[in-house]
């Protein structure tokens, strides 16, 4: 194998790929060849680095130089200066990496220094399309150990002892789940990797699959050995083409090397993995709906019991684990349960990956030990809200979760603390909101999502969420009365306790949590017909400020003739007649019309 003195890592995650990082990589390769450096410098496309805000990202090792917001016309200079002459091009570096006149490497930057990478350990470090790079990072060592040195019972015991909890949102202990399926006798059992990451604003699983697909495959094989399953399915969203492609490559390579297939490590254990594509149904993240979908049916959930561990896919005992959960498994097998429990909180050991998004400076993917406070995540890692706006709340758990306000920002994050606050861990989406976001509108947004995604099987979810949405729409349009708030709350509690599956049971959470922490905002909409954040357009009024020069452009645009004023004099909008179409604001050349 060729040894290179320097490596150029180009992020090939979805975020950076969207900003044409593939062209940047190509230009690096061309220029390096031109300069005759191709035997000394290697260019690799990796998985997500995490700091998507600064993409496209390029990191040059061994220095760990972090070039952010890369542009194709910067490539030549980096090759000439950095790779040829050994002089780091300071002006293209990520701002923070040149603090105090000293150059910081990637891991010294605030965004990364507070993180602990277990599930993401290989993301942004290895070429996910090359199994040898994974193996060089101790890949398939855990599988080898499990198959040759451990009994299935021992494997389950280690996972149980580690107290790893399901990272898909529920937080159910993984080891316990496995131990339910293991003793069931059947001619066939299945392992399913749930990669149907549907929460809007969550992209942890996608990044693991794109950046380190072999870790997931290895873990599935280990799980298969533990419960006695010889077949695995990865159920992945069709919206993730890069992840699907890398999984296909990974499965092919693992089969060629004999790490999947028949008689792995000559242990007599067979395990095969197949990819199944979802087709855009959020409810398929729920395990019984997911299995129905793999069976080729409408993805509708069913009653439990029987639990999948007893009767799952095609009626056979089945274990369904989330991508991130699985990505932890090989590390637990190699390093042991004690190591895993050495970080994180007591009841939620290990780390959790969060997708930071919304009104935050450092949008991206972070992996932190459980028990880290929200403040550290949002301010130290995330860099706070942009444009000096005040932090208002953070939404966790997507459509199943709730909002956490500034008052609780010192909460230490784990499964239980978030649930206590009326939110939930969920799969790990963390959307930050500032003073400009209306919480009623956010609740309406999530309900709209649930209404569209409800599978329609059970009445509380199908009918109830629709009624809730109608009330929320009335509130945002200023048509609601105070008794609607009580009705909303009652309905929410009923839906929560009577729905069939997790989707319906958690659908009211965004409403209940915003009602709990932002009742005053709801009341402002209902009583004063006012949206304090200035988001709900039906409650906003257009008005003309002193910037008006009296050009009469707006008068000519207004379809209802509600603007009056003489040429070169301040104009006025008749609020009674205004239909709030916004045509005047668009027409005004002086930005004199405001909406508030």
């Amino acid at each position, binding site marked *: 194998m060729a040894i290179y003195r320097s490596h150029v890592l180009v992020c090939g995650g979805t975020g950076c790929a969207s900003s044409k990082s593939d062209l940047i990589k190509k230009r690096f390769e061309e220029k390096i060849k031109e300069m005759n450096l191709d035997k000394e410098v290697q260019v690799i496309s990796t998985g997500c680095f995490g700091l*998507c805000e600064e993409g496209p990202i390029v990191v040059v090792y061994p220095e760990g130089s972090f070039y952010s917001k890369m542009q194709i016309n910067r490539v030549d200079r980096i090759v000439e200066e950095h790779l040829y002459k050994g002089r780091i091009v300071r002006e293209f570096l990520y701002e923070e990496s040149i603090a105090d006149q000293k150059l910081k490497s990637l891991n010294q930057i605030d965004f990364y220094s507070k993180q602990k990478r277990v599930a993401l350990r290989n993301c942004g470090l290895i070429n996910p399309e090359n199994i040898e790079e994974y193996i060089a990072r101790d890949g398939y060592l855990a599988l080898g150990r499990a198959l040759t040195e451990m009994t299935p019972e021992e494997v389950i015991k280690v996972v149980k002892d580690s107290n790893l909890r399901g990272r898909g949102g529920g937080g159910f202990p993984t080891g316990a789940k496995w131990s339910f399926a293991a003793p069931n006798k059947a001619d066939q059992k299945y392992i399913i990797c749930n990669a149907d990451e549907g*929460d809007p604003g969550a992209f942890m699983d996608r990044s693991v699959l794109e950046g380190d697909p072999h870790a997931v495959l290895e873990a599935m094989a280990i799980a298969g050995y533990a419960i006695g399953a010889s077949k695995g399915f990865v159920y992945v969203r069709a919206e993730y083409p890069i992840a699907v492609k890398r999984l296909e490559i990974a499965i092919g390579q693992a089969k060629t090397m004999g790490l999947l297939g028949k008689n792995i490590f000559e242990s007599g254990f067979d395990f095969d993995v197949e990819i199944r594509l979802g*087709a855009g149904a959020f409810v398929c993240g729920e395990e019984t709906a997911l299995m129905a979908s793999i069976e080729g049916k409408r993805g509708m959930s069913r009653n439990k019991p029987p639990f999948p561990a007893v009767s799952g896919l095609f009626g056979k005992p089945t274990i369904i684990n989330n991508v991130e959960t699985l990505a932890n498994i090989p590390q637990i097998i190699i390093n042991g349960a004690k190591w895993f429990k050495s970080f994180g909180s007591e009841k939620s050991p290990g780390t959790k990956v969060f997708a930071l*998004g919304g009104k935050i400076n450092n949008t991206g993917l972070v992996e932190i030990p459980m028990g880290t406070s929200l403040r550290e995540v949002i301010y130290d890692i995330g860099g706070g809200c942009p444009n000096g706006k005040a932090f208002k709340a953070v939404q966790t758990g997507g459509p199943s979760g709730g909002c956490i306000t500034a008052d609780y920002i010192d909460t230490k994050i784990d499964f239980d603390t978030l649930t206590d606050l009326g939110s939930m861990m969920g799969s790990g989406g963390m959307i930050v909101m500032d003073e400009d976001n209306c919480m009623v509108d956010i609740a309406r947004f999530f309900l709209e999502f649930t209404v569209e995604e409800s599978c329609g099987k059970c009445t509380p979810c199908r009918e109830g969420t629709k009624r809730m949405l109608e009330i929320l729409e009335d509130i945002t349009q200023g048509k609601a009365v105070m008794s609607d708030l009580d009705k909303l709350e009652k309905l929410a509690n009923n839906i929560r306790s009577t729905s069939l599956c997790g989707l319906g049971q958690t659908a009211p959470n965004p409403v209940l949590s915003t009602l709990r922490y932002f009742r005053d905002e709801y009341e402002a909409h209902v009583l004063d017909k006012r949206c304090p954040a200035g988001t709900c357009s039906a409650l906003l009024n257009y008005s003309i400020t002193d910037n008006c020069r009296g050009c009469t452009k707006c008068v000519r645009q207004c379809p209802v003739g509600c603007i009056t004023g003489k040429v070169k004099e301040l104009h006025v909008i008749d609020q009674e007649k205004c239909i709030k179409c916004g045509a005047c604001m668009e027409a005004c050349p002086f930005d004199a019309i405001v909406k508030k």
Partner: protein
Amino acid sequence: MQKVIDIKENVTKFEELSAYIERQDESQGVLMQTLHKAQELFGYLPIEVQKFVSEKTKIPMAEVYGVATFYTQFSLEPKGKYTVGVCMGTACYVKSSQLVLDQLIKTLKISVGETTEDGLFTLEATRCLGCCGLAPVIMIGDSVYGKLEPKKIPEIIESYRKK
């Protein structure tokens, strides 16, 4: 646009679909992949194609139709040359993707789910595209446009009209 598809004109596509179905292991729940394959071939799932799938797989037509209409990715209508998807994920939504969508509705003069008369554009409000760092985001075909402001929309659309 024409919704009934000419079976004679699409013979090779039907043959390819038929060959695909024959390769599948029937015990392993084949319908989803088959519909994915069919949509890849035809661009959408017209009723004739669903009937064909039903006959070949021996899965009742009602079930095929049920699955085809359950999942948002399967489309029973033909799509325009370019699908314009506006990300309505949470990260984009809190960064005002609604305003971007409103502007697209104005510029294209169609509402969500519709196709322009010239058959060029289909407008969709999509689920999270996963480029939350670039929010708000739209996708036209395979190209992603990030950190958008509504006023940039007309220019972007115009560039596709000229193609």
